[in-house]
């Protein structure tokens, strides 16, 4: 088992492994997505309070979960980068940042689309919304720093430090924003109401969450492959690849 992980740390092995794995993950994602969307948009019952517009949660909630999950993946990669200088961890963290930012953005946009008919306004300075917005800023800061540093490996280590600083800060930011809200004005916005959710609504939600996970894994592996090719373009093994070398 350990041997497998050691092998996975080497770029040529990882490149081939990811290339074989990514299509399968993509296919699983597609199947889950089709079933989940059908189940969520057609089969699941209408909400007695919110009508049909609640169905946006099948995009919104998985996107919000992914926005945090991807940051955690990046944090783990940052630890691997700082302590063991694992090249693959650098590559995966780099490839994850734009994906995390997109999921965060998606969560914000869908939340705002849902908020317009429900709350009567596009944006509320609600605790969760605000902390999600700040998470987006953190992602954008990480991407900006990575792009600003010329040497890729230095850039990866710099962003690793920033990611870890962010990990310490995310809970603090989250709770401070929630307390800020309650300190000021009290809950003016009623959230999704009772926590008990009908299983017929829950199952498509979980299916969609899994679909988003597989989407992320498939895309991050493909992005990581591209990043590896770019970084290692001067090495012998890349030169010998059939897709680089030509037929």
């Amino acid at each position, binding site marked *: 088992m350990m041997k497998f992980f050691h092998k996975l740390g080497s770029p040529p092995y990882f490149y081939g492994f990811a290339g074989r794995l990514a299509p399968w993950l993509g296919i699983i994602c597609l199947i889950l997505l089709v079933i989940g969307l059908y189940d969520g948009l057609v089969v699941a019952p209408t909400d007695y309070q919110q009508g049909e517009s609640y169905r946006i949660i099948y995009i919104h909630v998985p996107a919000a979960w992914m926005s945090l999950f991807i940051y955690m993946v990046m944090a783990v990669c940052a630890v691997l980068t700082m302590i063991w200088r694992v090249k693959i961890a650098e590559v995966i963290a780099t490839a994850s940042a734009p994906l995390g930012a997109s999921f965060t953005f998606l969560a914000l946009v869908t939340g705002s689309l849902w908020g317009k008919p429900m709350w009567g306004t596009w944006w509320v300075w609600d605790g969760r919304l605000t902390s999600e917005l700040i998470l987006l800023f953190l992602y954008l800061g990480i991407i900006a720093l990575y792009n600003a540093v010329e040497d890729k490996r230095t850039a990866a280590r710099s962003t690793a430090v920033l990611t870890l*600083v962010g990990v310490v800060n995310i809970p603090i930011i989250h709770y401070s924003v929630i307390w800020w809200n309650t300190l000021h004005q009290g809950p003016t916005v009623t959230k999704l109401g009772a926590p008990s959710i009908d299983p017929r609504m829950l199952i498509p939600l979980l299916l969609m969450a899994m679909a988003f996970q597989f989407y992320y894994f498939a895309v991050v592996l493909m992005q990581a492959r591209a990043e590896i090719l770019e970084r290692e373009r001067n090495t012998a093994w890349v030169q010998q690849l059939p897709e680089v070398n030509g037929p």
Partner: protein
Amino acid sequence: MNGQRSLSRAFLALLRRDLVLAVRQRSEIGNPLLFFLIVTAMFPLGVGSKPQLLQAMAPGVIWVAALLAALLSLDAIFRSDFEDGSLEQILLSAHPVSVLILAKVLAHWLITGLPLLLVSPLIGVLLNLPQGATATLLLTLALGTPILSLVGAIGVALTVGLRKGGIILSLLVLPLYVPVLIFGSSAVQTAAAGIPVTGQLSLLGALLLLALSLSPVATASALRISLS
């Protein structure tokens, strides 16, 4: 041997050097302060001078202005040392880098944070802040501005080698300042309403301790990366 003593001597020497450098170049002390004053003076001009409006806005305005003033002066922590090479000497020294960094951050706070603290009651008067809240304003700034310097140092350490570091620095650091802004301004607001603020003050104190213990380590490793 007497490692302990020589470490504290190195700490004090570095602190003194930075303070002397700042005193010789007074604009470094004066400019952030001037910026702080001007920014806060812009708000009444922009939103109107109704006393009640100003009073409601004062804590937030003062805190945001303090945030921006700190941000503007952050680059000075490491920039000149990076350019003349003394930063590399600090990294090469036999003493723990994080302690030396703490000396530099302390000097930065004494140069930029402390003067801010001293003029803030004046700005409170200009913005119609109730008398009772002035003490809380001072207390929150005393607890909060060191956090700004400490957290900002990490950002500066990451961007010091970059040509266009300034704008990226603000992208990195401002989201991390959110908790300080929230607790600082809400404490002042609560105090203005005559309600005790021990909760916010303890939270700010906790944040300060956390920043004090973790940020020098993060700054040290960021500097090593930037200078490698």
